[in-house]
């Protein structure tokens, strides 16, 4: 039974291995659960990978590589694609010369996210072909097939994964392609690449023509498979839901869709005609069910209650039985909390004591919302602490406005806090404002990735460092403080209090490395010093 070439890989690792085997020349992304491990593993295998400041830049970097004829990937979590959606909606018009695979790692059930948006809607909205694997083997195989698809139609491909596909480990037998990737080479195509209206109008027509071709091709493509079963019950499914569905109803005939935009409607019609009753089993929004029903094909979707959260085998059984009775709720486990000795604790203690109105952001420090701190009032999306804080400062009565503080992490500040700070300088509120960068010198929440503010690359090698205090002064913030939030330090409270009282825009950088990797950071720094000495 044992085979020597079976690897137990997570979906993320399978993407990395496939990208490496496909000769992907550049991978760019921003860390985000559950996508983070893809680029780390790709770099570990020897691929060229980089963390970009945010997903928009990452996608643009990958677009550049693919314009140059290379194979490229951009990786991000579902909400990251919101940030990258601006280039996404136009790169479908321009197309690419090489291959461009955009990995969107969705988080149904919100294991570690602020929402559970279903990014399959992006495929329709941006008109980009979409592929959905259901386990690590398929992730590997579909990735290689997606590269071929991208190069054949010169279009980017949306590679849509979900938490359980990204993080489950399943067996993979790698089958590296025999042919090497094409060598990057620039070919000028001004009408195809410069999206002024005169060139974008025909580009849109061209895009729709390509999608029609792909839809026709998809009718017989190997992305979609029928698993035979008896004809009483038919299931149409995709992604991880396929696995749950097969287990919940082993007797059913199943149409498993792998290329889920544009959909193969003729194949779907034939399948539905071949069974007595057909149910669509999908996680998240009723994307497939609504698209199929809109064509006048008679299928049953799931009851509304199954839009929320992840699916699993028991929930699929309920869908098939049309059982909408309340689901048993398991006893809650222990919630996560800020680590003992975490420097963020020191800042949140002060903010609570001073009764501040705290606009928060995305990262470990979002845990400041929970007791014993209860020191966060808002958290919307990456970077929103600054804009939301500014809006409150401008509109609240002065006695309340004076208590508003924006709190953001170092990686998040680079991601999308800088423009908010510019807005504060440009549109200063009458009461001033206080922005605190909780700088623990890493992207802690996602597992300690580097970012431009650490001065180290994805692989922890020394590179140029973005210095927040210099940046703030350069854009016109006059009051800038750097404090060390060590436990029991009176300095933090003193500086925050003075800043609130000043009535002026103040940036406080509370800088102390995350205790979980402080030792590791010292190692990187020691390495860097040794390398530098050797070079001189």
């Amino acid at each position, binding site marked *: 039974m044992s085979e020597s070439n079976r690897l137990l890989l997570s979906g993320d690792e399978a993407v990395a291995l496939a990208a490496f085997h496909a000769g992907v020349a550049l991978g760019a992304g921003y860390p985000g659960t559950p996508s983070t491990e893809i680029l780390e593993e790709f770099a570990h295998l020897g691929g060229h990978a980089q963390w970009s400041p945010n997903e928009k830049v990452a996608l643009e970097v990958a677009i550049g590589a693919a314009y140059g004829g290379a194979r490229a990937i951009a990786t991000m979590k579902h909400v990251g694609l919101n940030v990258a959606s601006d280039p996404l909606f136009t790169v479908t018009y321009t197309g690419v010369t090489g291959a461009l695979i955009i990995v969107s790692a969705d988080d149904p059930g919100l294991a570690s996210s602020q929402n559970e948006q279903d990014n399959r809607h992006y495929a329709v909205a941006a008109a980009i072909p979409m592929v959905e694997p259901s386990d690590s083997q398929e992730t590997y195989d579909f990735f290689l097939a997606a590269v071929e698809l991208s190069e054949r139609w010169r279009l980017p491909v949306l590679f849509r994964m979900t938490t359980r596909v990204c993080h489950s480990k399943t*067996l993979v037998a790698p089958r590296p392609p025999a042919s090497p990737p094409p060598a990057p080479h620039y070919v000028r195509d001004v009408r195809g690449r410069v999206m002024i209206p005169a060139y974008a109008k025909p580009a849109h027509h061209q895009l729709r023509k390509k999608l029609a071709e792909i839809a026709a091709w998809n009718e017989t493509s190997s992305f979609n498979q029928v698993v035979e079963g008896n004809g009483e019950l038919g299931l149409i499914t995709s992604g991880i839901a396929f696995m749950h569905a097969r287990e919940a109803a082993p007797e059913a005939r199943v149409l498993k869709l792998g290329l889920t935009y544009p959909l193969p409607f003729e194949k779907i019609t034939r399948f539905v005609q071949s069974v007595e009753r057909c149910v669509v089993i999908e996680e998240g929004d009723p994307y497939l069910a609504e698209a199929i029903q809109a064509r006048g094909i008679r299928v049953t979707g799931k009851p509304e209650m199954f839009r929320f959260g992840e699916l699993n085998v028991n929930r699929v059984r309920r869908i098939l039985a049309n059982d909408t009775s309340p689901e048993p709720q398991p006893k809650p486990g222990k919630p996560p909390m800020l680590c003992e000795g975490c420097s963020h604790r020191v800042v949140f203690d002060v903010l609570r004591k001073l009764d501040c109105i705290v606009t928060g952001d995305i990262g470990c420090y979002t845990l400041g919302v929970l007791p014993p701190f209860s020191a966060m009032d808002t958290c919307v999306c990456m970077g929103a602490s600054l804009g939301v804080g500014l809006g409150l400062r401008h509109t609240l009565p002065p006695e309340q406005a004076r208590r508003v503080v924006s709190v953001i992490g170092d990686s998040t500040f680079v991601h999308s806090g800088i423009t908010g700070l510019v807005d504060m300088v440009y549109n200063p509120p009458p009461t001033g404002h206080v922005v605190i960068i909780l700088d623990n010198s890493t992207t802690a929440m996602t597992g300690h990735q580097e970012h431009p503010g650490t001065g180290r690359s994805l692989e922890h090698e020394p590179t140029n460092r973005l210095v927040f205090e210099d940046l703030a002064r350069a854009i016109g913030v006059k009051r800038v403080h750097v404090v060390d939030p060590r436990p029991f330090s009176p300095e933090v409270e003193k500086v925050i209090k003075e800043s609130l009282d000043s009535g002026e825009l103040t940036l406080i950088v509370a800088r102390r490395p995350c205790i979980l990797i402080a030792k590791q950071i010292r190692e990187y720094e020691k390495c860097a010093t040794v390398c530098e000495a050797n070079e001189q």
Partner: protein
Amino acid sequence: MSNSVTNVVIGGLGGQGVLKASDILADAAVRAGYDVKKSELHGMSQRGGSVSSDVRFGAQVLSPMVPAGEADFLLILASDQVEPNRHCLREGGTLIVPEQVDVNRLANRKSLNVALLGILSRHLPIAEEHWQAALRAHLPEKVIEDNQRAFMMGRQKQPETKN
């Protein structure tokens, strides 16, 4: 429902080695020639909160998640995590709890996860050589001996709790 699939859920708190234990189990099952799937959630759970990991192996495994009420084995690393995970266990399934290991006999208390795997290993159709190979593949050299001893301590231990 595939009757040929063995379902194990490992639960504990962030930092206790839940994921390490499930990595070792999954690897041992792969080495024994089974189809294997392993699933857990990363992210927020890293900050000291509850962590659990599902490992399933057999001739063919479909869903990577153990359906509630279908775990054959529930292995718990922190006593207060029994209740939040009890719904996973099937009727007649086996509960393995930290009290079954005398931590004072462990050279390193961090090996509790591996000692509990030793107890689990008594019930599973996976040869000892595969466990040993999996331990070597997933643990750093300097702690391997302590963990091998912890594993054998659990493997040779008699008592077990039936649910």
